[in-house]
């Protein structure tokens, strides 16, 4: 437990440091852009000094950490607002979008995977069709088509889950592929044949013996998808005007607004640590072989 805390802190430290370095590899910053054309270079410089940007990078790095320990993520270079406030405003929307999206993804993905592995005929074919189709079209295209052709429905608040559903359809395709395959691999395993020979019913076999080991490789994939969606659903956010962390990240990266990007990375690092930890626990619980 203690070791895990240390490694988590190490992860956080590394993520922040890498981001810090990467951000400063791109020349220019958010301040110059604000005063362009006003023939007032002093204003830009004054603002830089006020924000501490004139200090050497190592000093900026150190003071960032000092602030971080106190829970202060700094102030946005572009808006002047505290980073914590900007993130707090956007995170609920992202969580709703991502959480909803993952729920749909798990339902669609596991359902389709099971259908493909355990049924025959039309349902299996539909499930296979679904998972291949979900992978053949990018989510941003489905989102665009949905908005262009079915736009009326999206405006209504009762259907605010639809963007999550679209995300879920595509992430579900990923899950369905992996899960369906894992189920089929498990079906040919020895212990399944033994169970069949023992006379267990099909559904007992599938639910009690095949499901858990097949879930093992999928759990981590699900966790990674969830993490990716937190900051990666940028285009979906843009198309549906759900301004969450993804769009904020994109704007801040393009504006070279260091504190906001760093703040998002801090949170993302924490999120990934939690997600991968949860995935490991789930795997440990699911597969008795791993416990030993």
């Amino acid at each position: 437990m203690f070791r895990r805390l240390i490694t988590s802190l190490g992860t956080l430290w590394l993520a922040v440091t890498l981001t810090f370095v990467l951000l400063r590899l791109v020349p220019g910053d958010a301040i110059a852009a604000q005063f362009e054309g006003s023939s007032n270079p002093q204003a830009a410089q004054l603002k830089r000094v006020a924000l501490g940007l004139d200090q050497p990078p190592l000093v900026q790095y150190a003071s960032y950490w000092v602030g971080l320990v106190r829970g202060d993520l700094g102030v946005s270079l572009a808006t002047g607002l505290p980073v914590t406030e900007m993130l707090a405003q956007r995170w609920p929307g992202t969580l709703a979008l991502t959480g909803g999206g993952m729920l749909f993804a798990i339902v669609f993905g596991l359902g389709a995977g099971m259908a493909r592995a355990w049924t025959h005929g039309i349902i299996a074919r539909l499930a296979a069709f679904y998972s291949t189709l979900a992978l053949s079209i990018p989510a941003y295209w489905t989102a665009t088509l949905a908005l262009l052709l079915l736009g009326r429905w999206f405006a209504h608040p009762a259907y605010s889950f639809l963007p999550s559903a679209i995300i879920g359809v595509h992430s579900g395709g990923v899950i369905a592929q992996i899960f369906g395959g894992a189920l089929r691999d498990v079906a040919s395993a020895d212990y399944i044949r033994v169970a069949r020979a023992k006379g267990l019913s099909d559904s007992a076999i599938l639910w009690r013996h095949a499901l858990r080991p097949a879930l093992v490789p999928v759990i981590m994939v699900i966790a990674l998808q969830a993490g990716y969606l937190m900051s990666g659903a940028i285009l979906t956010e843009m198309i549906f005007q759900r301004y969450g962390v993804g769009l904020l990240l994109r704007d801040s990266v393009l504006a070279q607004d260091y504190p906001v990007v760093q703040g998002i990375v801090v949170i993302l690092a924490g999120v990934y640590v939690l997600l991968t930890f949860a995935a490991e626990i789930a795997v440990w619980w699911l597969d008795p072989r791993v416990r030993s």
Partner: protein
Amino acid sequence: MRRILLLFLIFAAAILIAPLFAPFDPMRTDTNNALHSPDLTHVLGTDHLGRDVLSRVLYGGQRTLFVTVSATTGTLLAGILTGMILGAWPLAQRILTPILTACLALPPLLLALVLLTVSGRGIAPLIMALTLPQIPVVARAMQSAIRPLSAADYVMAANSVGATRSHVLWWHIWPNLVPFVQRYTGVLFSQMLFQAGALSLLELGGEPGVPDWGVMLADGRGAFLYAPWTVLAPGLLMVACVVGVNWVVNRDD
């Protein structure tokens, strides 16, 4: 095995010789002929700048497939290798896992911006921008898939007779990992295929004007309702590629 060979041949043909069949210069614009519906001269119509869609699709296929296949292969190699190291050596696991998790938190956009500004345009930075963010993802997924395999009985048996770790990896773990890798390849291929287009939508794209299916798909969003042929051609081909790759990797369908 036959399936893989067939797919490989098709892709290689697309990359190497498809552009030879292009009737027009894919970069040649024509302001008098923009968004023209398909006819005898322009079999797939023209795009928003008057360029021949068929030629752009043929040249675009070359570039898109090359980028996607390279990115997928590179990611898989690096990811599987890392994943196996993680799975087999506990010490490596302790050091590498936090590094990988930290890399997961790095926004791919930031990486793309840095690569774009530092290395400029070109195919190599694009492939790097696609590959690097995915390597930790693949590595973690592989590690998770290897875990139960390395706890299996046959592994314990092999260890008890003194087999080296790499022997165990190669002869016992890897063959049981292959199905997972195959399926993951299908997923990864499709993600890479669309990522270049997504990057261009986010204004971090590569060389402007150079034909690329993903970029054509992204650019075509604005004119889709009026000129669907600009999107249908690259879109359907991309669907075909993903279906093809999945048909190969899901060998027991």
